[in-house]
């Protein structure tokens, strides 16, 4: 009796398991599939919001914020950053070279391609990272990644890419895929004493209020960086916001040039491929 029940039970279990799609640990990352699912998810959440509009983040979900933003953008607060950034970009280094000599296409209209994966170093390179590499290669000190003047320079370079579709690539190499997957894991991992992940606010609660702010969806969220935040009173990079987000969930932030942040930027920006660069942006 018992043996028969056991056999029946085992057969049922086996059939059930076979029918369930099991995610095999160690399955090869499929960034393209992730990206498709990510964009489809938000389409189902906000069916009437056109894909390109996601780059305006919170302004899609609050009329009063949008109206204030439209007024502000009549005279953009990041204008000083742009002017300073342009000046920095065009100034030659002491050795006679300039940023144009290091970067593809002379550094103009390239922001949509970053972050990119550097097979030689096996690391993700952000636009700011590429700028610093250029500086170091030409005998200059690297700039701090979070605030001005790096934010000014990146603001100008991003401005020259405005409207271009984000075009981050994840090559089919083990190291690139590992960096991508690491960024994806970081995005969904809960951290800090408040036990929130990036997804907690920017996927689960996207479009809703968090105290006085409106949470932007993760889709398109990198497109308007660097941003002039009214809260900061100046322009800051994506990394600056990562540090702030960590602090807000009561987690000790990483160093600005950490692999965590670079890989996170890689994953996050890749999810928004196809959306137009909108930076530099203005946010509350």
């Amino acid at each position: 009796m018992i043996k028969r029940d056991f056999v029946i039970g085992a057969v049922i279990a086996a059939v059930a398991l076979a029918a369930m799609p099991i995610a095999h640990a160690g399955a090869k990352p499929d960034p393209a599939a992730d990206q498709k699912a990510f964009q489809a998810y938000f389409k189902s959440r906000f069916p009437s919001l056109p894909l390109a509009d996601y780059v305006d983040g919170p302004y899609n979900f609050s009329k009063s914020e949008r109206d204030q933003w439209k007024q502000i953008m009549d005279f953009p607060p990041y204008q000083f950053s742009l002017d300073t950034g342009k000046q920095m970009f065009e100034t030659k280094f002491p050795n006679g070279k300039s940023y144009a000599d290091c970067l593809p296409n002379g550094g103009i209209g390239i922001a949509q391609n970053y972050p990119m994966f550097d097979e030689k170093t096996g690391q993700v390179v952000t636009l700011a990272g590429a700028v610093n590499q250029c500086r170091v290669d030409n005998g200059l000190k690297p700039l701090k990644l979070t605030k001005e003047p790096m934010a000014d320079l990146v603001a100008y370079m991003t401005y020259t890419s405005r409207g271009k579709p984000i075009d981050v690539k994840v090559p089919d190499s083990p190291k690139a895929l590992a960096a991508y997957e690491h960024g994806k894991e970081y995005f969904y991992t809960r951290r800090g004493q408040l036990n929130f992940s990036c997804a907690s606010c920017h996927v689960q609660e996207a479009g809703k209020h968090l105290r006085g702010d409106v949470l932007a969806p993760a889709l398109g969220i990198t497109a308007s960086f660097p941003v002039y935040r009214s809260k900061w009173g100046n322009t800051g990079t994506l990394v600056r916001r990562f540090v702030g987000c960590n602090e807000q969930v009561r987690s000790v932030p990483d160093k600005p040039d950490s692999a965590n942040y670079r890989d996170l930027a890689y994953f996050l920006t890749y999810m928004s491929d196809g959306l137009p660069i909108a930076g530099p942006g203005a946010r509350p």
Partner: protein
Amino acid sequence: MANQILARATVSGGVTTVQALVKHPMDSGFVKDKAGKIIPPHYIEVIEFALNGKVVLTGFWGPAVSRNPYSKFMFKGGKSGDTISIAWVDNLGKKAGTEVKIA
């Protein structure tokens, strides 16, 4: 110094609209730096907007105004080609100014 004041003036139906973004730290004197030391007060005290030399708006700003103040105001009068001049003085006695033509 370059980039101190960005301004734009347009006229429509006899009403001129002036917008200005003034670069200034506007430190109130109440904020401490990371080391715990007070950042000394440094803010614009008075700003004047003039049409062809005649003052149309005086702003008495002071420590309650935030960094890089943006102003926008309208007044009856002015025509295309007229000069709007902007000048400020801060609590340390520094001054700056600029001129733009009404579009």
